[in-house]
C-alpha cells in the first residue's frame, strides 16, 4: 500500500496525470490566448475599412470581412499624417542613446569589478553642500550660473585636496553600485521639472541632444548593474597576462574584455534600446514637435471625430513590431538580463 502510494506520488511529480496536465494546458492556453489576442486584434483592425470597424466586431479576415490596405497606405504614404518623422526620431534617438549608455555604463561596470574605489564620505558630503549652496546662490541671489559653477568646482577641488587627508572613512565598490541602482526609486516626475528648466536655460529643449542625454542618464544604472554581472564571469588571467605585457587598462578593456563580453553587451544593448523605444513620460515633458517620438504621437492622436482605430492600429503595429522581433530573437539574453537582478 505504502509502496503503491509512493510510486503514484512519484509519478505525479515527474509527469503530471492526464487530468492535471489537461487542466494545466487549459489554463496556460487561456493565458497564451490572452497574451496574443490583443495583438491579433490590432493586426486585423489595421486592415479593416472604417465602415467595417463601425459596424461591429468582425473576427477573421476574408471570412467575416474583406481586408484592405487603405490604412497602411494612408499612414505611410500620406504627407499630412507625418508618421515617418516620429518613427525615425524614435529609431535615431533610441539607437544613439542605447549606444552611448552601453559605452559609459559598461566602462563603469567594468571598473566596479576590477578596480577598487574608496570614495571618501567627506568629499561626498562636501560636494552636496557646495551644490546646495550654489543652487541657493543662483536661485535666491540671482548670480550668473556660469560664475557659480566655476567657483564652486574650484572650491570643491580645494576642499578635496586639503580635507580628504584627515578623514579616512570611505565607501566601497558595492556602495557605488547600490547607489546607482537606487536611483530607480526616484519618480521621473520629481527629476524632470528641474531638467526641463535646465534645458530651457541652455536652449536645447526639443532637440536630439536633450533627449539623448536624458535617456542615457536614466538608463545608465541598469547598464552598470547588468554589465557588472557579466564582467564578473570573465576570467582574470587573460587580463593579467596582458597587463604583464605592458598593455594599458584601456587597451585591455577594448581588445580583451569587450570581445569576451559580447553576448552580455548585445543583450544589454537591446534591453536599453527597448526601454528607450518605449519611453513616454520624459519625452512628454522634453520633446515637442521636432523630436516627437512614436509613443507621444500615438498618445496625441485622439481627434475630434473620435479615435480612428484603423490608422491607430497601423501606428501601434509600427511601434510594437520591431520591439517584439528583437525580444523574440534575443529572448534568452533578455531573460538572463532580467534574472541578474532578481536571482543571485
Amino acid at each position, binding site marked *: 500500500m505504502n509502496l503503491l502510494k509512493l510510486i503514484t506520488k512519484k509519478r505525479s511529480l515527474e509527469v*503530471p496525470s492526464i487530468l492535471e*496536465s489537461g487542466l*494545466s*494546458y487549459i489554463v*496556460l492556453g487561456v*493565458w*497564451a490566448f490572452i*497574451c*496574443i*489576442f*490583443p495583438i491579433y*486584434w*490590432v493586426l486585423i*483592425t489595421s486592415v479593416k475599412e472604417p465602415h467595417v*470597424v*463601425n*459596424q*461591429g*466586431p468582425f473576427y477573421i479576415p476574408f471570412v467575416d470581412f474583406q481586408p484592405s490596405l487603405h490604412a497602411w497606405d494612408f499612414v505611410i504614404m500620406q504627407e499630412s499624417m507625418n508618421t515617418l518623422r516620429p518613427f525615425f526620431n524614435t529609431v535615431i534617438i533610441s539607437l544613439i542613446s542605447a549606444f552611448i549608455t552601453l559605452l*559609459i555604463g559598461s*566602462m*563603469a561596470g567594468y*571598473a566596479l569589478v576590477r*578596480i577598487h*574605489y574608496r570614495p571618501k564620505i567627506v568629499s561626498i558630503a562636501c560636494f552636496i553642500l557646495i551644490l546646495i549652496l550654489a*543652487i*541657493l546662490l543662483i536661485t535666491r541671489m540671482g548670480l550668473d550660473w556660469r560664475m557659480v559653477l566655476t567657483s564652486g568646482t574650484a572650491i570643491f577641488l580645494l576642499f578635496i585636496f586639503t580635507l580628504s587627508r584627515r578623514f579616512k572613512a570611505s565607501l566601497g565598490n558595492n556602495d*557605488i553600485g547600490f547607489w546607482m541602482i537606487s536611483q530607480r*526609486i526616484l*519618480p*521621473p*516626475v*520629481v*527629476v*524632470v*521639472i*528641474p531638467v526641463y528648466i535646465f534645458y530651457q536655460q541652455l536652449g536645447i529643449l526639443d532637440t536630439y541632444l536633450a533627449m539623448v542625454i536624458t535617456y542615457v542618464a536614466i538608463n*545608465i544604472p541598469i547598464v*552598470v548593474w547588468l554589465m557588472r554581472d557579466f564582467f564578473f564571469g570573465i576570467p582574470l588571467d587573460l587580463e593579467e597576462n596582458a597587463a604583464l605585457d605592458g598593455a*594599458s*587598462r584601456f587597451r585591455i578593456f577594448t581588445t580583451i574584455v569587450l570581445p569576451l563580453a559580447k553576448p552580455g553587451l548585445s543583450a544589454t544593448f537591446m534591453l536599453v534600446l527597448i526601454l528607450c523605444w*518605449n519611453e*513616454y*513620460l520624459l519625452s*512628454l*515633458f522634453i520633446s515637442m514637435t521636432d523630436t516627437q517620438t*512614436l509613443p507621444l504621437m*500615438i498618445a496625441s492622436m485622439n481627434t475630434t471625430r473620435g*479615435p480612428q482605430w484603423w490608422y491607430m492600429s497601423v501606428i*501601434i503595429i509600427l*511601434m510594437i513590431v520591431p*520591439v*517584439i522581433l528583437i*525580444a523574440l530573437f534575443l*529572448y534568452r539574453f533578455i*531573460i538572463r538580463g532580467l*534574472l541578474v*537582478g*532578481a*536571482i543571485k
Partner: protein
Amino acid sequence: MLNIKTFEERLDRQAPALFIMPAVLIVLSFSIFPLIVSLFVALSRLKFVKGGIEAKYIGFLNFKKLLFGSQQYHFLGKFDQLTAIGYVIMSVFVILILVWFYRYFRSNNFSLVGTFGRLVVATGLFFLLMLTLINLTTPKGLPGTLVVTLVYVVLGVVLQYMIGLGLAMLCVQKIKGRNFFRIVFFVPMMITPVGIAYLFRMLTDMTKGPFAPIVMLLGMEETSWAVIPWGARIAVMIGDAWQWIPFMFIILLAGLESLSIEQKEAAIIDGAGSWQIFRDITWPTLLPVSVTIVLIRLIEAFKIIDLPNVMTNGGPGIATESLSLHAYFNWRTMDLSGSAAVGYLLMVVAVFVCLSFVSLVKNQVEIAQQ
C-alpha cells in the same frame, strides 16, 4: 612616437577615474541636482517672465495647499466618518502591528534605532490605511490621487504576483511546449504602455470591440466602464497586469526551476502532501526572489502614468488619476511648483512604502534562508 607613449602612460594613470567618472557624473547630475532644485521649485512660486523664470520663495505653501488647502480634495480626496467595516479593518491592523512589536521586543536583537524605525513604519502605514478606508469605504468619501495610486500599486502588485506565481507553478511541471508558453507569455512585457492603453481601449469598446456580443448578451451595451470610477480603475489595472504578469511569471519560473528535485522527492517519500511541500520547501526557496521582484514592481508601479493618461485621461473626474499624472496635469497648466510638490510627495510615499515593505518582510526572509 615617444610623445604618444607618454600620453598613453599618463592616460593610464588616470584610468580608474576615467572609467567611472562619466557614469557617476551623469547619474549625479540627474539625481541629486534635480532633487535639490525640485525642492527649491516646490518651495517657491515660479513665474515665466521674458527670458527666463522668476522664482519667489513662499515656504511650504504649495505643500499646505495640497494637504490642507484648496487642492486637498485632489490629493487626499474627500473625507467622511469611518463606518463599521472601517473600524473592523483598522482594529485588525492595530492588533497585527501590536503582535509585530511584541515579537520584536521578545527577540534578542532589539535596539533603539530599530524600535524607532518600526514606530515610523507603523504610524505611516496607520495613516495611509486610515486615509484609504476613509476615502473608499464611506458613503461620502472620494479617493484623491494618493489613494488611487496606492490602489494601483498595492492591489495591482498583489494581483500580478498571485497570477504570475500560479502560472509559473503550472508551467514548471513536465509538460510539452513549455518553451512555447514561455515565449508567448513574454511578449506583452516588451510593448510600450501607451500601446497597451490603446489596445485595451479598442478591446473594451462596448459596441465595436471583440467582446461586444457578450456585452449584448448581458444587455449592458448602454453602460460604459469609462464613466464608472471603479470600472475605469479596474480597466487601468487590467492593462497594467497584462503587461507585468509576464515579468513575475518569468522570474518566478526561474526560481522554481532552481529548486532541487531531490529535496522534493525526499519530502514525498516522507509522505508530505502537496500543500506541505509548497509550504515547507517551495515557499522558503521562492521567498527571497519574491521579495526582490515585488520590490522592483513596487518601485516601478508608483510611476504609473501612461495607462491612465491614455485610457481614461484621469477620468471620470479624478477617479483614475495617479500621482504622476496629477503632477503632469499641474505642469501642463504651468503650475510648475505645484507639480514639483506633488512629485516630492510621491517620492516620499514611494520611498516610505518600499522601505516599510522591506522592513516588514526582512525577518521572514531571514527565517526562510536558515
